[in-house]
């Protein structure tokens, strides 16, 4: 069970039931549970969509697409069944927030999925949870059973005449499966290879039917929007960036943890006030603002509001909410290498620019970090990454290229310090050599 933290600047919306025992349906009902579904049952689908659109809620999975707008793309009439798919694959390095939602407030996700179903006229929703989160999948299975037992799911929910089923689904270890089209492949029992778009999932998704895919936090926000109103939610954040979101502060901070803050909260304040500043003896070198795929910010760039548009303006992305603080003890070449090793490992291998690009970049970075680099490598790393951008089948290639480009550009000096066979200036005595099994 992950620890909970708290700070006076927090505005608790999706996290308001954390730590209150809301996994039990009785407790959830005491805490305004399933009221939003009741309300939605009395609303026209168009009004639900309008409310969510006006709230300025943008996808918490990474791309930040307006949720109501996404729902509005689902055709009204469809010969094939429509589906809602909740993305709980959470595997973008630096991100650990959906885990808390599933652990503390699983019913809010069920409620969000049901409301999405009402809005687009779907009768089935799936909640996909990554395989590593076994205990959460058990919590979710229990919550779903309770919701059925109380008539919040199944045939004729709450006597409304509306049928809605929610099922859980489990993964088995794959980052790429978090990508929406690969997620559908995985749910259909296949390798997680992305699909070409268009057609977009809203039109042709699971088993060919129109499918809404949203992140778990996005869906868990929806019931609060219906109850509090679009205007209230929108005003919590900044223009076009409604509400709050869960920020996962990690790295050498005094108070790391998952905090719910208004959109547009200043990053510097987030690090020094909310996160308690750098731990004794460490200074800040760089920040990964939204999961490992987002371009890094330097110490000089952190005075920025944390919303989708402001981060875009400074050449980065708000991404998944994973704010990783890089301190002065870290070697940026090594950091770039670790990020690239991840993407190389997780590339599904389907398209060549991603498969070969990540592999080549990893090899170059490995050689470079161990002192075998030449000056030309530095430019090559950037050139190759830039040539992956926009040329891969799904955005995993971009996710690998973007942080790499930013590290090479912003920390070039650290790359130069590795030249001429010099050992990494920040590497501690190579640990592996101490290990007898490696001898």
């Amino acid at each position: 069970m992950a620890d909970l933290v708290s700070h006076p600047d927090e505005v608790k919306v999706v996290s308001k039931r954390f730590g209150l025992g809301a996994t039990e349906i009785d407790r959830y009902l005491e805490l305004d549970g399933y009221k939003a579904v009741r309300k939605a049952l009395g609303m026209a689908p168009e009004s639900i969509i309008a409310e969510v659109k006006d709230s300025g809620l943008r996808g918490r999975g990474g791309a930040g697409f307006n949720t109501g707008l996404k729902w509005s793309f689902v055709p009204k009439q469809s010969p094939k069944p429509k589906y809602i798919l909740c993305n709980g694959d959470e595997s973008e390095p630096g991100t650990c927030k959906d885990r808390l939602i599933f652990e503390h407030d699983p019913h809010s996700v069920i409620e969000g999925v049901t409301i999405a179903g009402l809005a687009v006229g779907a009768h089935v929703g799936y909640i996909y949870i990554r395989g590593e989160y076994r205990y959460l999948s058990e919590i979710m299975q229990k919550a779903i059973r309770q919701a059925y037992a109380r008539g919040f799911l199944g045939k004729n929910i709450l006597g409304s005449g509306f049928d809605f089923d929610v099922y859980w689904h489990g993964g088995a270890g794959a980052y790429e499966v978090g990508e929406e089209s690969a997620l559908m492949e995985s749910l259909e029992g296949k390798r997680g290879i992305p699909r070409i778009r268009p057609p977009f999932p809203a039109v042709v998704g699971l088993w060919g039917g129109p499918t809404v895919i949203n992140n778990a936090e996005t869906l868990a926000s929806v019931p609060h929007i219906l109850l509090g109103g679009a205007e209230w939610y929108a005003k919590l954040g900044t223009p076009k960036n409604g509400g709050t979101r869960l920020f996962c502060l990690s790295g050498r901070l005094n108070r790391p943890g998952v905090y719910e803050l208004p959109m547009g909260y200043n990053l510097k304040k987030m690090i020094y006030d909310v996160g308690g500043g750098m731990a004794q003896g460490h200074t800040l070198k760089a920040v990964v603002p939204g999961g490992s795929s987002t371009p890094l910010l330097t110490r000089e760039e952190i005075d920025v509001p944390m919303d989708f548009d402001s981060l875009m303006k400074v050449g980065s992305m708000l991404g998944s909410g994973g704010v990783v603080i890089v301190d002065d003890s870290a070697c940026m070449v090594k950091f770039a290498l670790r990020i690239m090793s991840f993407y190389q490992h997780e590339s599904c291998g389907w398209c060549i620019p991603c498969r070969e690009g990540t592999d080549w970049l990893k090899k170059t970075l490995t050689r470079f970090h161990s002192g075998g680099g030449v000056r030309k490598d530095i430019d090559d790393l950037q050139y190759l990454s830039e040539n992956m951008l926009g040329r891969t089948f799904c955005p995993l290639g971009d996710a690998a290229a973007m942080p790499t480009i930013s590290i090479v550009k912003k920390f070039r000096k650290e790359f130069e310090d590795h030249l001429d066979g010099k050992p990494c200036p920040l590497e501690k005595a190579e640990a592996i050599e101490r290990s007898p099994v490696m001898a």
Partner: protein
Amino acid sequence: MRFSEPFEQRFQEMASHYPTRRSLLVPTLLYAQDEVGFLSDEVVAEIARRVELTELEVRNVISYYSMLTTQPRGKYNVQVCTNIACLLMGGEEILDRCRLKLGIREKETTPDGLFSLEEVECMGACCWAPAVQVNYDFHEHLTPQKMDQILDQYTKKGTERRR
């Protein structure tokens, strides 16, 4: 090929959740692996039959997912995250300590069959780094000393049960 009662119940229940049997595949493989220890030829054949696929199709899916394995592993699979948040907080030292203490490298199993070791990607414990999962259990805020203690506890648990 027999699975446990809860496995069968879950399988039955899940079969009604999807329009195709194939959708049962990924979660079922993982639950089967948890019972048998790995995806043996027998398990693959049985699941292929149940979801109406060829064994080749099932193996094609198995090879994609990093948690699925066709090789036996230790009773306790120690999975050490060294991804960015854990890296910054000393994840590599934790991995080293595990290598040293268990006397094995990644993807190996101790001769007594108790432990295997893996270096893994982000497991959603970044704010509580460095983190390790032993089978499905999370261990967070680790130090090399704490890691030793945790491994000792599993050794004790594993050898007691055997006696």
